[in-house]
């Protein structure tokens, strides 16, 4: 049987997106034949590349033998996975009950106004994306947002803008 060329084509396409599949190979090898590891593989891939473009999903499908439809199905089911790139600083704005009661909607408005983007979009300078997420579990400090591994609590419109300015200033 003639060998399918799919994997090679995927790799080339992924190169254009600046995605080096070599980084994922150790993970794929580790989980080859281990059933139930698709989510773990996807989590590793997203950690490496920041997001999961369609071509990468096809590559993972080809390497693991899991049908593309199933890979895509899992990716779209869980909120953690994203198929679009995000800004350098990914802001996770908590939409838990306590944050909602204490004004998370106002903070979202501030983010939208200050950054000039809607949820999930990247700012023009590629610095920021914000996403609404379910409870971050820091309810007593509500409203809360998380950027990277750092949690910022008791946000006000003013403190939110100050935090963003500080992060942007660090980059210059």
């Amino acid at each position, binding site marked *: 049987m003639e060998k399918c060329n799919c994997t090679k084509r995927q790799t080339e396409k992924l190169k254009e997106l600046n995605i080096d599949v070599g980084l994922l190979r150790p993970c794929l090898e580790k989980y080859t034949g281990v059933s139930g590891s698709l989510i773990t593989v996807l*989590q590793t891939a997203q950690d490496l590349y920041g997001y999961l473009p369609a071509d990468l999903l096809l590559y993972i499908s080809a390497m693991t033998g899991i049908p593309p439809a199933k890979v895509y*199905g899992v990716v779209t089911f869980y909120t953690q996975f994203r198929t679009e790139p995000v800004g350098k600083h990914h802001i996770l704005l908590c939409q838990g*009950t306590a944050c909602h009661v204490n004004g998370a909607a106002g903070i979202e408005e501030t983010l939208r106004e200050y950054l000039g983007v809607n949820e999930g979009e990247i700012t023009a300078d590629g610095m920021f994306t914000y996403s609404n997420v379910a409870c971050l579990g820091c309810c007593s*400090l509500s409203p809360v947002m998380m950027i990277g591994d750092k949690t910022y609590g008791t946000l006000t419109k003013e403190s939110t803008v100050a935090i963003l300015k500080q992060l942007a200033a660090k980059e210059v």
Partner: protein
Amino acid sequence: MKVTVGKGSCGIAAGAGEVYSMLSGAVAEAGLNCPVTVTGCIGACYLEPIVNVEYDDGQKRIYVKVDADGAAAILAALKGDASRENGYLIPNEDLSNINFQTRIALKNCGLIDPENIDEYIGAGGYKASEKCVKEMLPEQVIEEIKISGLCGRGGAGFPAWFKWNAARTSPGGIKYIICNADEGDPGAFMDRAVIEGDPHALIEGMIIAAYAIGYTGGAENSGVSSKTEGIVYVRAEYPLAIVRLENALKQARDKGMLGENIFGTDFSFDIRIKAGAGAFVCGEETALIASLEGERGMPRLKPPFPAQRGYWQKPSNINNVETYANVPWIIRNGGMAFAAIGTENAKGTKVFALTGKIAKGGLVEVPMGRTIREVVYGVGGGIKQPPVKANAQGGEVRKLKAVQMGGPSGGCIPAELLDTKIEYKTLMATGAIMGSGGMVVMDDTTCMVDMARYFLDFTCKESCGKCTHCRIGNRRMLEILDRICDGKGRDGDIELLTELAQEIKDGSLCALGQSAPNPVLTTIRYFRNEYEDHIINKKCTAHSCKPLIKYVISTEKCTGCTLCAKKCPVNTIEGELKSPHKIIQQNCIKCGKCKDVCRFNAVMAD
């Protein structure tokens, strides 16, 4: 001397990381013989960052809301100059709030170093699991749990021993012990606090469960080693919890409490972590199993129950973090001691995450049977009041309106039912549920229709889509609530919501769908007047639904300072200097900025 800094997620967010590095740096620099260690969350989140100091003379002092200046004051106190520490000592009232509680699941949280297994062992840890594995038969362990009356703390409140026994009696070469740490209920964070603050309690609880469910060796079948495997399914949103748990697992393995032949017996058990990927429905046990298997997390019909056929079709026992964390205490102190706490219908304690418009939010562990009022006012200090504006007369006083329990599956309990006892049955009678222990307090600025909409929006997003009623019915209910909040509610909407709610309850497979209409039903039951105000009078009495608010300036209170006119983003406030101003309503975008900036409380929402 010993210094301990509370470094849970919330403490770190409040600045505990900086305080820790300041103190450890300064202590080393000053050459003091005083270890600086970390601990988890003690539960008094409103006091974070918290620093405990044990002085050489045996005195213990708790410093709260510690900032850079506070750290300097503590350092001075360590050197013998306690003159500046007063401002940072914990107020007596707050101390008694902590002492008011009965702590079992949170026993060690905020007291021991979660990254050091020796501190857990020093606090009596791993004695219970050793006793089980070495001295007790699995059946005896299950019997002890039965005597204790421990019920699942994740929401359903199912007796733990029953599940354990079912999993034990199901045949299968390998059995799985799964911990549900996919704490998805928005407004609850006790599982995070336990894993971050006392991960070994969870591990020990799982060891005991594994032994009770899966051990088949022993005298009669000597040499037959049982096969059990543990998995903790933890939310990816809890990075610190994952790190601390990984560290704790490694330490337990190194000490021989996990792995092959634990405690030198023929019983083997190990635990691995699986990070969830963000789906509320995975809190449902069959959905969680599907997710563990790498699939979309969609529930399936029960039976067969997971105890019969679960993960990879093998007998599996699933409990939540808090449930497992209670187990070591029960074995150590006996099932009777646990059953002595609480009421006839509900045994032991329950941890609640007290949040929302509460003065002293945090984690609270109280015996079953306490009233909601005792928790909200006794421990939580009542409603959080807004800061008083300096020049204003007649500042606003907020009143408690409702307490939401059980998250998206629960309901809103109105102020007049605050004396309801915290028990599975009594809460159920109000239309709410115990749930995983979220307790969100709401004052009169919270609109109950908007609250119902918020929860329904959540369940719509989190519905897995399998059952038509849940997938489409909830969406239709959300649309109705959207239009009510927009001031476009129609006569008959309340009846339509009630009818749809019943259909969804009847037509959904899992608890997510069956309970999704609860927030709507309870708010209609207790706050029907608010719905009617929205629909008929086009008014939101809580002044929360923007399309229904009208801002007006009181001619009596307005001093004509022009501040509001200057700050108005759409320049729709008119008036001369030193004479009352007026808002031109047709251009008003209802941003509320004028109300925020007014120093005289002259702008009112109508």
